[in-house]
Every structure is written in structure tokens, then in C-alpha cells.
């Protein structure tokens, strides 16, 4: 047996024993009237036991298709899906030890909350006394014990959401698959449910696979995130890794706000390069781009400092004019037009020592630590 070390996904074909879910070279092509549409194109993933794993991407990126292949509602066109190390090709959904929380909740409208939650246990012929006990515990977990006799139509959206969650969790599956479960809720409820979901996941210790297009949700809740675009994994990593070091232009643009800066490599120095950006702009970055070539750089708005004094020579720097000041209470957002042409967004915390740093139209220096800049591949 292999040890439970975490490997680079896709580095070899065999799943380590610790992976609850493994996808190897999984592709899915749908045939439509016009021809073939590739929804998923060669995904390799390993999701560990007890992990809160997010599949993040815009609509049409293949994240839902990926989840449906894990659940058994779609079969991969090529590649292998493994659950706890077993190849589940051709195994129908009712014989897979994963349960899904549907975006539309998909509660059974003709059954009470209790019967909805008990559905999976009864199909598995769990004795009635145990069903009552486990359903009771699951409804306690989602704080709906007093609604057991209600029909779903009498519950609010948030309550229905929690019933859907209880109905899936009560079966103690190896993994829970959540398909945009909070998408239909309003902002405040969604934020409350995010915390709630994290708590439930901690309490039951089940692997969560969470499909979402909301990068905030993924960053807040997930242990690891796979960013999907056009049916491929653009980046796989912890929220901090994905946010701080976007691997591709797509990730940089999709997650959070990113400033894109284009410059020319003026001088190379080992692994690093000094990049000239417009007049007086100077950025130091780790890149393999050759001298004289153009390079795309990215820096997060909250890493940039805004000031009137010229920054020290060790810092990356740009010169610009404040175009927009948006005061948000705890922070202020500035939009700065730089000499290089590109507008740079700057988030500044309104901390105790912060003053009104700049006004519309004033000339400022922008500076940041070189380690916060990343060169984006072509």
C-alpha cells in the first residue's frame, strides 16, 4: 500500500490510499446537435480525506460536470474516477458512497422534512429506531429539529438549504458534493451559511467538494482550491497560494482584483529581472523573460502603498495621478492613472495612523515589495 503522503496531482496513475476522491486524466465530451462540446479536458485531481475542497471557476468551466462525474450522473469520456482508491467507472449513483447537495436543493416536495432526511437511510435499510435517532441528530446539526413535520414548501430558502444539507450529511458518506449550495440565498444568509457549513464540516469530518463560481466563498471556506477554466485546472493550491501567487493570467483576473502591468525587461540578474514600466516606473520580478522582451506583471491592490515621497530604491515603484477615490469606511480604494497608461487600483486600510492620503488629481508614488509582484506566463 502506498503511504498517505500528498503528491503532486497527476504525477502518476495510482491513487494514494489517503485520497478520498481521485480523478486521473478525466475528460467529458457532450454530443449536441451541432457537434461535440468538450466540457472537461483532462483533469487530474486528488482530494484528501476530510478536506474542504473547492472547484472554482466561471459558468461553463466544467466544474459541475466534474462533480457530476464524481457523483455518477455522468460517465467520463476518458479517464478514471476513483473513490477511496476504487475505480467507479460504470457504478450508478446509488452505489457510490458520495451524496450531493443540489443547487436547487431538489427536496422531495411530497415528503415531510423528516422523510426527506430519512430517505437515504431507509433505502439502505437502516432500522427504524436508528433512522429516527440519526435524522434527529442531523436536524439538530442544522437547527431544524422543530420543523421535522413540515413540507419543504413551508420552509424559507435558507431552511430548505439546511434540510438539503442534513439529508446528505445524515448518510455519513465518504464525501459530500455541494453544487453551488448557497447560490440562491441572499448575501447576508450566504455569509451566515458559509460559517455554518465550515462548522458542520468540522463536526462531521466528511470530505466536502464544493463547486462554486464565487471566489470569495472558495477563499473563505476551502482548504484547497482547484481553479477551473475551459475544462482544465488552471491552478491548484491553498486559498493563500491561489490568491497570492496566481499561476496564470486567468487566475489573476478571476480571483480577487489584480493590477496588470506590462513592461520591458531592462536588465537580467540571475533569476530576477528589472522591468521598466513607462517613465520612471521600475519593477523587480522573478522571471525567465529575456532582456528586451515584454513581460506582463501582476500585483494585488492591497499590497500597493500610496505616498507623496519617493520610495526607497529597493521597492517596486510607479508614478501616477489619482483618478478616483472611493471611501468605504474601513478602507479606501484609489484608482491611479500611471504614466505607463494602465490604471492601478490601490486598497488602503483606514488604520489609526492613516490620514487622507491623496485627493483626486494629485500626483503620487505607488510602491510595493518586489516579492508581491508576479510575472504571468505569455
Amino acid at each position, binding site marked *: 500500500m502506498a503511504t498517505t503522503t500528498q503528491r503532486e496531482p497527476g504525477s502518476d496513475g495510482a491513487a494514494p490510499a489517503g485520497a478520498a476522491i481521485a480523478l486521473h486524466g478525466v475528460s467529458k465530451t457532450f454530443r449536441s446537435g451541432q457537434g461535440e462540446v468538450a466540457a472537461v479536458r483532462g483533469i487530474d485531481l486528488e482530494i484528501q480525506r476530510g478536506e474542504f475542497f473547492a472547484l472554482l471557476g466561471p459558468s461553463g468551466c466544467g466544474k459541475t460536470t466534474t462533480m457530476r462525474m464524481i*457523483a*455518477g*450522473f455522468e460517465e467520463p469520456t476518458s479517464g478514471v474516477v476513483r473513490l477511496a482508491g476504487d475505480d467507479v467507472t460504470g457504478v*450508478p*449513483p*446509488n*452505489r457510490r458512497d458520495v*451524496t*450531493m447537495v*443540489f*443547487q*436547487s436543493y*431538489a*427536496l*422531495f*416536495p*411530497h415528503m415531510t422534512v423528516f422523510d426527506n432526511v430519512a*430517505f*437515504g437511510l431507509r*433505502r*439502505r435499510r437502516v432500522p427504524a429506531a436508528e433512522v429516527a435517532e440519526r435524522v434527529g441528530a442531523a436536524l439538530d446539526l442544522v437547527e431544524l429539529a422543530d420543523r421535522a413535520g413540515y*413540507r*419543504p*414548501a413551508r420552509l424559507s430558502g435558507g431552511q430548505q438549504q439546511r434540510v438539503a444539507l442534513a*439529508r*446528505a450529511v445524515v*448518510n455519513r458518506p465518504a464525501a459530500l458534493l455541494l453544487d453551488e449550495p448557497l447560490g440562491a440565498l441572499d448575501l447576508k444568509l450566504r455569509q451566515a451559511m458559509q460559517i455554518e457549513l465550515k462548522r458542520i464540516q468540522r463536526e462531521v469530518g466528511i470530505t466536502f467538494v464544493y463547486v462554486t463560481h464565487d471566489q470569495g466563498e472558495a477563499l473563505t471556506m476551502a482548504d484547497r482550491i482547484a481553479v477551473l477554466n475551459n475544462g482544465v485546472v488552471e491552478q491548484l493550491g491553498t486559498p493563500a497560494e491561489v490568491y497570492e501567487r496566481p499561476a496564470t493570467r486567468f487566475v489573476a483576473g478571476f480571483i480577487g482584483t489584480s493590477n496588470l502591468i506590462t513592461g520591458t525587461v531592462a536588465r537580467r540578474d540571475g533569476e530576477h529581472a528589472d522591468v521598466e514600466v513607462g517613465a520612471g516606473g521600475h519593477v523587480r520580478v522573478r522571471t525567465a523573460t529575456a532582456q528586451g522582451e515584454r513581460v506582463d506583471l501582476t500585483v494585488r491592490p492591497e499590497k500597493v502603498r500610496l505616498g507623496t515621497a519617493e520610495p526607497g530604491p529597493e521597492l517596486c515603484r510607479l508614478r501616477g495621478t489619482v483618478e478616483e477615490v472611493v471611501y468605504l469606511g474601513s478602507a479606501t480604494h484609489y484608482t491611479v492613472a500611471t504614466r505607463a497608461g494602465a490604471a492601478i487600483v490601490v486598497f488602503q486600510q483606514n488604520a489609526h495612523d492613516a490620514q487622507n492620503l491623496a485627493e483626486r488629481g494629485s500626483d503620487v508614488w505607488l510602491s510595493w515589495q518586489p516579492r508581491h509582484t508576479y510575472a504571468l506566463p505569455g
Partner: protein
Amino acid sequence: MPGPSGTSRAPYLLVLPGWIWLAIFFVLPICGMLSVSLMTGNVIDGFGFTGAVGNYAEALGGYWEQILRSLLYGLCATVLCIAVGYPMAYWIAFRGGAHKATYLLLLLLPFFVAQVLRAISWKFILADNGVVLGPLKALGILGPDAHVLSTATAVVCGLAYNFLPFMVLPIYAVLERVDHSVVEAARDLFASRTQAFLRVVLPLSLPGVFAGVLMVFVPTSSDYVNAAVLGGTHNTMIGNVIRTQYLVNNAYPTAAAITFVLMAALLLGIFGYARALGTEQVMEVQAR
């Protein structure tokens, strides 16, 4: 003058023609029929209202057999319609894809032909030496005396055939609205295909089945065309009796009394069925 009160009255004004229609063509005739059913007399001397409850005794006593047979035939035709129509509705709703409308049109196409003509065609098809029985007899699969016409089977099949769309359409309408993810949820929660159907799809489609039963059982039980064309002397339905009493014997009070007895029997049957199913199954339970 249009005003706030005028706009709120609009729905009532719009529904008024419906109420007037019902009053003129349902309430008035039924009251007239009720009074006719309590009359005595004959065509030559005329009829007079005498409060003759005896007409009902005659209707029940003389024709209970035909009434029971009609209800039985109606029931058999209804069950047959469910057996044939439910899978059709299911298939069109879940597998029809982009061609649902075409399939529904195909289902209805035979009914653009007049009902009497269709019954006569059945008579031709089922004739003792017709296109079906002839070859079977020639091959020796059936005996030379085998026949379908003039049997209860022929009448029930004719009824079921003629009222099939009234079963398929309401079931289709309900199935078409069943959220597919609910079926997937059942499959995901360890239900086999059969269990998912029995526990989720079937209960959700019961309002449609109920509507279909209503629309098939009531008219088939009081139908007379199929029994007249496809049945024999032993398959007379109450519709045939009423028709004969009214149009041949001119026994209007008797015909009216039988009609009310039939109505009462049908209403009792339907209410019994609704009670047995439970009101929640009869009403829509679909959460939207």
C-alpha cells in the same frame, strides 16, 4: 368611469360570462331534468309533475345491472388507459427531448377522425374474419368460432382507445413539471431506478393520474357509442339504455331518473377515490 374600484371589479366581470354559461346550460337543464325525473305520463297525453319517486325505483330496480356493468366497463377502460397511457406520458415527458410537441400531436392525430367512424373502423378490424382474426384462424392459432366483437373485451378496448389522450395529457402535464434534479437526488440517496420511480416520480404524478381518471372514468361509464358498435346484446351499457328510453320509448321521466342515478353513482365513486388517495395527493404538492 375607470377607477381603482373598477380595476378590482374586472376579474369578476371577466368571469361573469362563464357563470352565465353555466347557469343557462348546466343549472337550468339539470333543474329541468330533475323535475322531469319526477313526472308521470306518456307522449300522447303529455307529462305532468306528480313527484313520482317511483321513477327512481324503476331506474334502480330495472337497470341496476346495466349501471353496474357501465361502472365496471368504465373502471376497466380507466385502468387500461393508465396502464397504456402512463408509460406514454412518462416517455414523452422525460425522453421526448425537443420533439415533445410532435409526439403529443401524433397521440392526438387519430382523434381528428369522428368518433363513430373510429368505432366502425374497430368493428372492421376486429370482425370475425377480419384483418386480425382472419389470419390467426387461417393459421390455426385461434379456433374457427373465436370472436372479439360483441364481447366485453371489445367494448372495454374501444372505450380505452377512445379516451386514451384524456389520460395521457394530464399525466404528461404533471410529469413534465417534475424537477429532474429531484429524481437525481433520489438516485444519489441510494435509490435504484425502480425505487426512485415508486418513491418520487409516481407520488408526484398522482395529481395528474387523478385528473386523468376523472376525465376517462366519467365519460367512459356513460358512453354508448362503443357498446352500440362493438358490443352485443349482453354488453348494453347504461348510456344505451338512456338513449333508448329517451329517443325510442319516449320515456323521458325514466331516462331522467336513470341519468341522476348514474350521476350519483359516478360522484360517489370519484369522491371515494379522492378520499382513498388523500386530498394532498389530489391537490398539487409541487413546490415551486
